[in-house]
């Protein structure tokens, strides 16, 4: 059902994988252009990272909401946004991806996912 969302994001230069993940860590749908990426494992880890970020936000800012979570490593980035009440949309990218472009596409497609779930 989310093929359009996945295709849209995979088309952005530097994006290697896309996943729509339930907040409890189950992969709803995903695809990677790089076969070495295990989308299902990433999905579970992303949900954990997002959950932790929410807790931190709550603890520090007294606000249980996070706009975007970005994990940057020398070999790549994982960027996650909320997609409706029960899911997140995440992308795995090269280290030198155009972050501005990825953010625009992520936000736009997160709204689509939210409207479809």
């Amino acid at each position: 059902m989310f093929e359009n969302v996945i295709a849209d994001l995979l088309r952005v230069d530097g994006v290697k994988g896309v996943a729509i993940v339930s907040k409890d860590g189950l992969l709803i749908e995903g695809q990677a252009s790089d076969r070495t990426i295990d989308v299902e494992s990433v999905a579970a880890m992303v949900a954990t990272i997002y959950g932790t970020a929410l807790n931190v936000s709550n603890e520090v800012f007294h606000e249980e909401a996070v706009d975007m979570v970005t994990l940057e490593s020398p070999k790549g980035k994982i960027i996650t946004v909320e997609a409706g009440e029960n899911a997140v949309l995440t992308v795995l990218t090269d280290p030198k991806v155009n972050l501005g472009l990825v953010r625009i596409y992520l936000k736009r497609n997160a709204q689509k996912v939210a409207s479809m779930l």
Partner: protein
Amino acid sequence: MLPGKFLGVVIDFDSTRELLTKIKKGYLKASWRDGDSLKTGYVLVSDGAILGALVEDVLSRERIEGENALRKISEVSLSKRLKAVELYEADVTEILRENPSIRVESGVISEDIPGWDLDSLLLVLTTHRGELRVHNGGTSWRLYLDRGVVRAAQTIRGPTQKGNDALKNLLWEIGKVMKDGRFETGGSWEFTKEDTVDNGGIFKEGVELLREKRRIDNAKGF
């Protein structure tokens, strides 16, 4: 990717052709899995007519354009593999000017229409230019439609008939087709002189009358 203003996503739809009527000028976009790959198809529409089509492989960036792209999208649509379709408003003329290779001449998405769905059939009869197949039990007909007028007819299953005889036979059986048969839009058919029909407007008129009769019957509670 084509430029355009996002109008919305449609998930529950019976027919891709029906979606085309929701866009005045723009395109519909749908993606589907094809083995390990992911493909995205675009169908450009202006006032109900299909003017262009494009299929892109998301990973390899390979493109299929024009009639071939439309055929591929039809195939996927017929096999019900399109789960969500996005609608966009766009300047179709400008897109076609910049991408002339995606233009199509005979624009139609192949689809199955159940015999009882006279509204969908009339929409096809009015807008379609190309082949329409009619299936009913042991007999099938192929018609060449030209926006409301049947230009040619022949049977492709059952007793062999061509031209006026084939159309007359179809009109005779239309009640049964409406009950148990189905219609299938297709591509193009190069008919011969033997297949041509003299009064091709009669088929659409007949279907319109049947729809009217059904409306009256329903109002009376029959």
